[in-house]
């Protein structure tokens, strides 16, 4: 469990970070908190010549409340989101999600930008940011860029970021004050990456529903969103219709889930929807 020798730089401007990545020709890796990257280095399943630590870049650890949206720097930790140290635009969805990521020591160090940039399909923020309609911002050799979180992931561990781009921040629009949300993920052991995950947001002017932990990009569920808009309450007898809507959405997205994965996803979705209607959230510190 010892990482191989590697060079380390901690630039103090974004331009310098991008320059360092460019001159390394793909042999450098951005380090934002290291809670996924360092295990990979420890296990030697990833090898790079150089780490470019972006935690010292100006603004990457700051957060700003801009009224209709909140901007989080890429290196804001899960713990700061969990404890409310940064503004929450999500009526509690983001603190709840943050508090269920991995373990406390990992949350204290891991960052939202690092998690998004790595794009492990089972990571919580990919689906959560997509569901909240957030935008991901980066700076690269061609200057700044951004895209909706919903379009950020192209495949497992593959995003819109180019090899020399640095993810700098996330803009998250404020949820309607009357918005109600539910989220549920299935883990065999508390804190491990989820086997299935669903998020449902009911709000005036458009519901949102996403599946995460899909082995690829999060899957948006438009038929489920339509169904949510018409629901006035949750009854277990609605689960069959919800499952059919989900299956139609997954097929329409050109994706497929194994039978077990579809079952797990359906269960998560039904629980997320029930939670948006007031069902108690799963207890912290317990596996689903």
């Amino acid at each position, binding site marked *: 469990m010892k*990482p191989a020798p*590697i060079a380390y730089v901690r630039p103090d401007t974004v331009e310098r970070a991008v320059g360092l990545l460019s001159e390394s020709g793909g042999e450098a890796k951005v380090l934002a908190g290291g*809670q996924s990257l360092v295990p990979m280095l420890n296990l030697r399943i990833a090898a790079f010549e150089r780490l470019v630590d972006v935690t010292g870049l100006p603004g990457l650890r700051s957060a700003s409340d801009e009224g209709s949206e909140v901007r989080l720097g890429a290196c804001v930790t899960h*713990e700061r989101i969990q404890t409310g140290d940064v503004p929450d635009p999500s009526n509690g969805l983001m603190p709840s999600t943050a508090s269920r990521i*991995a373990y*406390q020591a990992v949350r*204290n160090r891991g960052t939202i930008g690092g998690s998004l940039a790595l794009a492990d399909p089972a990571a919580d923020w990919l689906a959560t940011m997509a569901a909240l309609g957030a935008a991901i911002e980066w700076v690269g050799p061609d200057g700044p860029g951004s895209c909706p979180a919903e379009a950020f992931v192209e495949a497992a561990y593959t995003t819109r970021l180019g090899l020399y781009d640095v993810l700098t921040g996330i803009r998250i629009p404020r949820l309607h004050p009357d918005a109600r949300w539910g989220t549920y993920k299935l883990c065999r052991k508390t804190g491990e990456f989820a086997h299935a995950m669903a998020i449902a947001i009911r709000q005036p002017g458009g519901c949102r529903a996403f599946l995460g932990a899909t082995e690829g990009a999060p899957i948006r569920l438009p038929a489920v969103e339509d169904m949510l808009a018409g629901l006035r309450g949750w009854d277990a007898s609605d689960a069959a219709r919800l499952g059919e809507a989900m299956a139609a959405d997954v097929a329409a997205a050109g994706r497929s889930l194994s039978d077990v994965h579809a079952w797990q996803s359906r269960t998560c979705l039904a629980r997320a929807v029930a939670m948006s209607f007031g069902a108690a959230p799963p207890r912290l*510190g317990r596996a689903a």
Partner: protein
Amino acid sequence: MSSPRTIRFTLNGEPVSATIMPHETLVDVLQHRFDLRGARESCGQGLCGCCTVHVDGKPVSGCLFLAVFADGARVDTVEGLARGDALDPVQEAFIEAGAFQCGFCTPGFVMMVKQLLKEHPEPTDEEVRHYLTGNLCRCSAYPEILDAVKLASARQAEAARRA
């Protein structure tokens, strides 16, 4: 490409420095440069909590924390908790509750319980479980560990009332 560098940090209240390689983890540097054996590497993936130390007041997994990150930081380990001969109340509670067998995981648990009690002075069972899910005890002393946390919390509340 990879070259040694000197880092300076505060270790258990004392200013220290070390010349390290960028790929060395904090737990390795604490073990081998400072002879502090309380934080131990077990899983190397941040799953077991045996290497938990505090950096700038918050627990981190020492195996996932490159030593180079500690430059300029405050690092506290289980060795720094006691005041002279007096153990920390959390350490006392672990002993009184019999909250370990082999003791390999205990320093990590103690360091995580410090943050738990700082943020939740009188934690519910749910809060205790939530904070400690990243700490594994292979001897399975979990019921006694829960007792120890409650005992430490009660002692802390009593001390606060007297103060």
